[in-house]
């Protein structure tokens, strides 16, 4: 155990000293402010067009309209419940003088994960993941690493733990940086705004029976939790590729092709039966809590988690078997 700790410390130090994690953070620190600024200018332009004062009146009007419609006896109970929730949400904004159409730091941070989870975050993760084993081969240091009195599986496990640490850090830093930077532009308010979650599509129809109201910060954490699961799966599969190939560039190439190919597949051929079993189709786990339907039909959160779990376990098995048995020839 002490041994594993020392090994993991070695590996984390190597990633730090190699400056790979710096690159990841640098990318985040350049891209997030760019997106924030883009969003900010769009909103300013919109504001100039629409005018600042009339959103309260509009919102008040909406609430009255909706309350009116809820009186109708023809309305099904399901529908009524949703409208009730929407009214509550609108009242919240009105009471706190927040324009619901304007972005807050919480919304921006959530959107960043929602849109980044299928491609942007995986790309960040593979920077470290594809390098962590293959570089030992390409630099020849594997010969020293594997001739020390330590079992091979322990060395690989320490590398995997290191990867988990940096992947988790990447997700956390993304959240903190998004919130901090966007908060400067949009304000930090709105974190306790009531949000809906639990929309379902069952049998092709909209099912609102599971709809719940959550404070926004909880929804945000759910998004980041699910996004974390997706990135861990991508990290594990990149790790496997890193074990299988001998160079970082080759590993990056393979993972880029897989990720981009997978994204295209989901968009072009979502009802292709095999698409359901490919991990890239399930990376947008966040869609389940945000109420936007997943691009592939007839899937549920447990099903997606199962598929991702199988890929993760498969990737680990291949990695460990290959690494512990393979001849180190070059």
């Amino acid at each position, binding site marked *: 155990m002490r041994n594993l700790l020392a090994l993991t410390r070695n590996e984390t*130090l190597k990633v730090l000293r190699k400056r790979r994690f710096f690159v990841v953070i640098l990318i985040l620190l350049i891209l997030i402010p760019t997106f924030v600024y883009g969003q900010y200018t769009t909103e300013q332009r919109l504001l100039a067009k629409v005018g600042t004062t009339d959103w309260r009146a509009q919102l008040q009007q909406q609430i009255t309209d909706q309350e009116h419609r809820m009186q109708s006896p023809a309305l099904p109970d399901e529908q009524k419940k949703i409208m009730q929730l929407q009214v509550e949400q609108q009242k919240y904004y009105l009471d706190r003088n927040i324009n619901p159409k304007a972005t807050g730091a919480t919304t921006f941070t959530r959107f960043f994960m929602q849109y980044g989870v299928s491609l942007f975050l995986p790309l960040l993760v593979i920077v470290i993941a594809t390098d962590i084993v293959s570089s030992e081969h390409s630099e*020849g240091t594997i010969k020293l690493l594997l*001739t020390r009195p330590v079992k091979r599986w322990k060395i690989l496990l320490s590398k995997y733990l290191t990867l988990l640490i940096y992947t988790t850090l990447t997700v956390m830093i993304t959240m903190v940086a998004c919130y901090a930077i966007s908060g400067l532009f949009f304000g930090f308010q709105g974190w306790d705004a009531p949000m809906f979650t639990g929309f379902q599509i069952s049998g092709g129809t909209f099912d609102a029976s599971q709809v719940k109201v959550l404070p926004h910060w909880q929804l945000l954490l759910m998004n980041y939790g699910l996004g974390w699961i997706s990135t861990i799966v991508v990290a594990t599969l990149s790790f496997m590729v890193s074990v299988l190939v001998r160079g970082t560039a080759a590993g990056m190439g393979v993972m880029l092709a897989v990720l981009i190919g997978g994204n295209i597949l989901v968009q072009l051929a979502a009802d292709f039966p095999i698409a359901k079993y490919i991990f890239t189709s399930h990376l947008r786990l966040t869609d389940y809590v945000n109420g936007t339907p997943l691009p592939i039909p007839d899937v549920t959160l447990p099903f997606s988690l199962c598929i991702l779990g199988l890929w993760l376990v498969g990737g680990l098995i291949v990695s460990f078997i290959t690494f512990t048995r393979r001849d180190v020839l070059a």
Partner: protein
Amino acid sequence: MNSRTEVFLLTRTSPAVALSVQGLQKTIGKRTIIRNVSFDVHQGEVFGFLGPNGAGKTTTIRMIVGLIAPTAGRICIGGHDVRSEFIEAMRNVGCIVENPELYKYMTGWQNLEHFAAMLGDVTDERIQEVVQLVKMDARIHDKVKTYSLGMRQRLGIAQALLGRPKLLILDEPTNGLDPAGIRELREFIRKLAAEEGLAVFVSSHMLAEVQMMCDRVAILSGGEIVKVTSVEEIVANGVNRVEWNVEPVETARRVLAEALGADNVQQIAATKLIASLTQTETASLNEKLIGAGVSIYSVTVQNQLEELFLEITGGESIA
């Protein structure tokens, strides 16, 4: 006690054998690269592993340190089987396989710390000690990418010595060293063997180098051991070019031709004859010459290590 346990105890407790290789074989694809290689390396000796390019030295070393699995055969380090008791076996070994590749983006010291952590029980004082041993104090806190090849070799050796191994394995360690560096390394290796009782296993493709550094040598050619002997024996039985400065030259020529065949004896100057023969033959021929009344002014023996090496290894080019 039955005979099985007796054999077991013998191999386990005999302290003299640091490395034992038995019936080693490696087949990659359809090619058999190593064929039935066996030898023992004893504690306190410098053991040379000599062979031309492509003979299979590096492949054998990779098997010894557990980087690749043998197709057949058994390797024991300090009595521990490398396959079944990897950890115990590797505790006794320090090695450099081919080039001393270390982490270029870290300093020499950080590299040593890295490998010390893998061993578990190495103190900072020990790291300092090995740094001084290989005379790297001045540059140890610089990044390895700024080191010259010779400095990397030194750092590689420092790394190999960290865990106070009983067996040191060096694959062509003089690669990239200047003459002063080679000499220093040679003396260093001899010192380690003599003073600390280390067994040192050195691969090389130069007989002259092995002759100066090693006690015993295994000669490898085309993946097979040609012989395992002491270096003196090879030189003594190998063919040398001998030059006699004698008078009268005709008598001498007749005596030599009688013993060695007329083709072998050549006159290169008024009083000078040359012939190819072994060291032992040289002594007996000198007696015969004197017996025949020939005055010998001088006898020059030129070690023809290169030819000797080619002869032993069959002079083949890369297999």
